[in-house]
Structures are given as C-alpha cells and as structure tokens.
C-alpha cells in the first residue's frame, strides 16, 4: 500500500469499528429496555392503570406488535435517517431531540472552551515544574476536586454565586441570552460546575503524559542543547504527548454529553441526559434508542477523533 494512503486506511478501519459498535449498543439497549418492568401504556396511566385502560391505550398506540419487530422497524427507519415518533407524545423524535441536543452541545461546547485550555495549561505547567510548589498546589486541588461529589460542587456553586453573592443566575435555560455578557453569565454556573468535574481528570492525565515524555532521551538531548525548560516541554515533550492527551481529553469530554445528568438536574437545564432519563422512565423505546445512539456516537466520535489526532501527530504512523 502506498505510504500516503495508510493513515486513511487506518481512519476508515476505525470508522468501521465504530459503526459496528453502534449496532451492538443498539441491540444491547433494546434488550435492556425490554427487561424493564412495565411498558409505556402502564407508565403513562400511572395510578389510573386499570387493565382495561392499559389494554385500550396499548391498542391505540400500536404497542401490540411484538417489540422486536417494532425495534427492527425503528432500525430500518434509522438507516433512512428517520428516528421515529415518541410513544409518549407522538412527536417526532428528531424534533424532540434536536432542541435538547443543541442545548447539550451548547453547554458542552462552552465547558470545553473553558476547561480544556485551563486543564491543559495546568497539567503541562505542573509537569514542567514537577515537584515545585505550583505542581503541589495543582495536585492537591485536583485530588480535592476528584474527591468531592459532583452535586456538592454544583449546589455549593449555586449557593455562593447565585444566592449569597447574587452575581450569577441560578438557572441557565430560558434566561436572557441576547448579549454576549448575558449569555456568559447565564452559562457561567453550569460551566463552572462541569469544568470542575472534568478538568481534574484531564489535568492528571496531561501531567502524567507530559512527564512520561519528559523522561525520554530526546528531551534530555534538548536539555543538553541548552534548551530552556519551556522549550523542552513545549517544543519537544508536548508534541509527542499529544496522543495520550487527546485520549484523556476525549474521555473527559465524552462525559459532557451523557454524564451531566446531575448538573442538568440541579440547574434544571433541558439537555439530552435528562431526556434519556425521562425516556427510560416512560419506556419510550424510540426515544431511549435515539438518545443511546447519540451518547454512543458522541463517545465514539470523540475517541475516534483522539485516535486520529494521535495518528496524525505521529510521523511514524502518518
């Protein structure tokens, strides 16, 4: 194979694996949903779920078809780009999700913008001045942040910034976002809370990855060329640590789409994670599936992206 085609072949191979993974997840989610007690009709009727009412509603919603054929129907629809209709409110799933997803992505995007630069510079800085006071402070801070439950961080943030100091709104959704400063204010709180949660891991991994490359002969060589510490780390160690750093960032960011359920709950922010929880509690199969697909796609694309970055940053594989 020509050398220049090789990276693309690797990329295509990874995409293929990702696609296969998606199908596996889809089936797993389907069987998991089937295992849940109760179905959408029972759940919808709640206390009013008399057998007759449930039967009537099931009939009316077309739930009497076997689940597997409904699922296969949904999969076929998906192949044509149709996510189906929600059982619960008969709305187009794509429409239901699109709003929530754009909310989630907005939050994730802002958090990424804030946390990734901070986390990377702290991690690299700590590695650069390993063993210094700065390194120790960063290490202690990250350990403390990792060690405190997320809902504590979020609740404390609201208490301090919104209730006591009255600097920031306690809610992010639906408040005035007409100007940039208003938008920054509106998103500040969840972004702060989320940044705390995901940064710690990124800082740790970045620091470890950079330290590992600092301990290589070529960085020692740079030192012996008279390079400054900054040049050694930024010019020599960092480019070779890109792969593992990208991986760590991807893993942390993948959390931002599906894992933010607690932050969404506390800030009553309508994102996809809450949508999925709703969908599960109402056994809304098309919605559950679609949400699971979104989580999986975002996870896989981040991981694949990290892989590709690692590939491209390494001339030996390029």
């Amino acid at each position, binding site marked *: 194979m020509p050398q220049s085609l090789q990276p693309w072949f690797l990329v295509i191979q990874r995409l293929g694996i990702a696609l296969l993974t998606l199908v596996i997840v889809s089936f797993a989610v389907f069987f998991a949903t089937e295992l849940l007690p109760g179905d959408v009709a029972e*759940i919808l009727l709640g206390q*009013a779920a008399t057998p007759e009412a449930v039967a009537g*509603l099931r*009939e009316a919603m077309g739930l009497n078809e076997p689940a597997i054929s409904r699922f296969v129907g949904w999969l076929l629809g998906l192949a044509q780009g149709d996510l189906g209709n929600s059982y619960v409110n008969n709305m187009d799933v794509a429409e239901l999700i699109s709003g929530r997803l754009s909310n989630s992505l907005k939050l994730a995007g802002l958090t990424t913008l804030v946390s990734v630069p901070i986390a990377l510079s702290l991690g690299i800085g700590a590695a650069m001045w390993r063993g210094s006071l700065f390194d120790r402070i960063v290490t202690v801070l990250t350990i403390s942040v990792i060690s405190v439950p997320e809902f504590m961080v979020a*609740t404390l943030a*609201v208490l301090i910034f919104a*209730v006591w100091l*009255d600097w920031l709104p306690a809610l992010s959704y639906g408040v005035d976002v007409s100007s940039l400063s208003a938008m920054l204010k509106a998103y500040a709180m969840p972004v702060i809370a989320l940044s705390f949660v995901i940064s710690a891991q990124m800082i740790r991994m970045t620091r470890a990855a950079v330290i590992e490359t600092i301990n290589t002969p070529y960085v020692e060589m740079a030192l012996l060329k008279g390079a400054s510490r900054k040049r050694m780390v930024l010019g020599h160690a960092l480019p070779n640590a890109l792969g593992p750093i990208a991986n760590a960032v991807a893993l942390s960011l993948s959390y931002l789409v599906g894992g933010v359920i607690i932050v969404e709950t506390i800030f009553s922010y*309508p994102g996809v994670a809450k949508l999925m929880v709703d969908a599960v509690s109402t056994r809304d199969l098309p919605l559950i599936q679609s949400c699971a697909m979104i989580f999986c796609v975002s996870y896989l694309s981040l991981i694949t992206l990290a892989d590709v970055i690692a590939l491209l940053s390494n001339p030996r594989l390029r």
Partner: protein
Amino acid sequence: MTKTPNNWTSRDDAMVENMIRRGASRRDLLKMLMSSGVAAAAGGSLLMRASSAVAATPVSGGTLKAAGWSSSTADTLDPAKASLSTDYVRCCAFYNRLTFLDEAGQVQMELADTISSDDAKTWEVKLKSGVSFHDGKSLSAEDVVFSLNRHLDPAVGSKVNSIAAQMTEISKVDDLTVKIALASPNADLPTILALHHFMIVADGTTDFSKANGTGAFICEVFEPGVRSIAVKNPNYFKEQGAYLDSFEFFAIPDNNARVNALLSGDIDYAAAVNPRSSRLLDGSDDVSTLVSTSGNYTNLNMRLDMNPGDKAGFVEGMKYLLNREAIQKSAFRGFAEIANDQPVSPANRYHNPNIKPREFDPERAKALFEKAGVLGTEIPITASDAATASVDMATIVQQAGSQIGMNIKVDRVPSDGYWSNYWLKAPIHFGNINPRPTPDILFSLLYSSDAPWNESQYKSEKFDSMLIEARGALDEERRTSIYWDMQEMVANEAGTAIPVYISNMDAFSAKLGGLKANPLGGMMGYAFAEYVWLNN
C-alpha cells in the same frame, strides 16, 4: 424592613394570612398572636405584612416565571391525559372547565351558565354565550359533547375514564345547551365537572402539540419536559382577564435548586417547596409562602386479604403504632394536619370533626399484635420516594416498632414504576392520594367493594349501599350524616392508615399578589396564573 420575632416562621406568616382570608378580625388575630407569645408591636407589624399580601390592589402587566417540581417528555396539553401538576397548571391557563371550585370549596360556574337537575340523574348544562376559542371559533354545545365524550374512549387514555363512565348520555340540546344523563343519580356532578381533566377543548381536536382553548392565556411555546410560554388572551370571556402579560412555566425537580432559583430572583414562584427549606425561606424578606391543606395524604395500606393484614388486630395495632405527631413534626416539619385514618379532609365541607385521631400508643399496639400473633415476626413495608415522605414515615414506624419488639423491614423501591408494580399489590405499602373534591369520588375510587383503587381491599355491603344512597340524596343534611358515618367506618374498619393530611407550601416572590389557598391543591388549585399579579 420589618422586625420579626426570632421564632417566627413563614409557616406562621402563612397561617395569619389564611386567617385573614377566612375573615378573622384584627382583634382576634392580635389576641391569638399575643397568646402565642408575640409582643403586641411586633404582632402589629406582622399583621400589616400579612394583610398587605392579601389585600393589595391588582396591577396589570409583567411576566411571571414559575417553576413546578416535575416535568418530563410525558408532559401534555391534552387535559384528559393530564397527570402531573405541571399539566394541570398549563391546562388551567389555556382551557376552562364548565365549573370550578372557589377557595371555600364551593362550586362556581365557569363556562357553564347554569347546571341543573331535578333528580340528580338527568342534567342540563347551559353554556355562557360569547365565549371563543383562541383560534376564534365560538364555544358551542358540540365542543362540550366532544370534550366529555373523549373520556369514554379508551384510545384517548383518559385519567378519569372510571369517573366519566357514569355519564351514559352526553348530547347537544341546542347550540348552548348540553344534556348529560347519568347511570344513577349523583348530586355531585357540578363538582365532578370541576376536575381538571374535564377541561373543554374544541370539537374534533386531535393534535395537542398546541393548546386551543378558551382560557385566559394563549399557548405560544410548548416543549414537553422543557417549558411553556403563555401570553395573555385579549379576547377572554371573563370581565377581569389575566393580569399578567405573559406566563412562563417549567419544572425544577430538585427542591434545593428550586428554592435557590427563587431566592436568587430567577423565578417568581416555586411550587411545592420541601418543608425542610422553610428555615432558609424564613431568612429572606423577598419571599413569601402560601400553605394550603387540601386533603392530599400519604397513607399506609395494609391489605385485608393478605398476611399479615388479614389477622384481626394487626391493622388496628399499626394504626396505634403510627406516631402521628412525629410524622407531622419530623417528616413534614409541621406542614401537615394530623388526620384520623379517613380520606375526607377538613378542607372538605363533609369532613367529620368528631372522629378523633388515634393516639400513639405502642403498648396498646403491642397487645394487639400479640393478639394477632405477629409480635416478633418480620413485617416488610414497601415505601418509595414516589409516595411523598413515605420513606420517612416508614422509618418512623420502624423505630416505634423496634421499641416493642416488632421487626419492621423497610423496603425502599424506586419511584420509577412504583404505581404499577407495588401500589395496591404489596401486602403493606404506601399510597399517595391527591385531593378529590367530593367524598363520593373518594369513596367510590378508594373504598367501595368494586373501587378500582381499593388500597386495602376493604369490602362492606353496608358501605356500598350507603354510598349509593348519599350520591342520590339531594337533601344536604341527610348526605352529610351518611358521609359522617361512612368516614367513621373507614377509620375503624379499612386497612388504610392515614396519619396526616399534607399541607402544600408554595414559595413565591413578595412582589406576587392575589394568591389564595384552594382546596383542589397548591398553586390555587393549579389555576393561579389567571388570578395573580406582579407588584412593581
């Protein structure tokens, strides 16, 4: 800023306000306050604050942001399917019922001009004229017939299908007159029609992604599980329409977050605030609270057809083992009234005040358990966060049990699926019953032999026949006496222990005026949007 006594809480504020609403004189109030140890001067200023909250002049305009406590993709604008407070609030804003209940629990006409019957079996509903839907169409008898008939169609999935089933015929007489024939006499029909599910929608409506009603607000945005935005209906049929220009409603499920959002001024209204937050709310001058006791309760159900509920003495023993005071004080932090094991609350005019709540008496319970032969055995109780405070109540019973050698095991199960999997099914479990406007609905839903939600499987022919008699009785005194007797039967015979009626506490910005408690539930029976205003 008003100086308030240290131990004064929003609960007391709310109580004073309620008394003013009920018509107490200033002198009565001051006397009451003095007796509870509040200095006269402080008492005076407290009264000032309370009175101004009740009696201010309405102001038009403004946007109200209110937060409920639950919301999901199952949110609906279809009144027949409405199941959460969130749905009720929205339906009240966008639609109207034929009748509604005022703060005193009295039936008032809304879309109906009159509702009349000679025999309580065949009813004639005359509609108001000049009422129009948001899309401009005029309200007519067809709309009412369509709206009521929907509940009989199983495909709709109506929550009140079983109540509506008694309407055997719903037909149009003329453009503004509807005839409703019942299977058997029921004098409560006007009250039944005040249920939130019986909102009137336009004839032929199938799409409920936007609401087309006659209500005080027009639906502008509705995103299930996210929010709704409503704007004032300029063509509202009532003389005094909504004061607010617009009304945004969404849910913040986390209590703490809801309270914090209110305290930080991001919302104006936080519904159903946990009593534990009261101490925090007390500290703020910008926030008031509204407490309504409407007959919502969480009860302990012991099925009489299953072990151990079928053992004579067990049920009574459990009723004595319930430390009602501890439940009221600890689990509800005082935001509850002690109940007497029957479902008709003091907010209802048929409430029987002669039935005294059982005292907490572990020794007596012990004797009863011994008699039932269950002392020392393990008794599992199923509780869930789905039934308000049931886990705390179970814990309290468990503690009391451990003192007399009863091994009560609390089985906390997830809220998700609780109603379909555990409620009515487990031998001992908790239920949570929302307020219903009439004893008839309560009894036929919960206690008659063929009741769909017969929580303890209570069966009594005598009870059944009394229910039918009271239902058809147009003589108010006769009805009251039958209902009093029935309450006594439930309290003593049924396997449902009702320790307290839960008060609902809503917290809201001090700018908000016009709020009153309503027996149908918090948020003025969910209809507050139409009646409140924002002071500047």
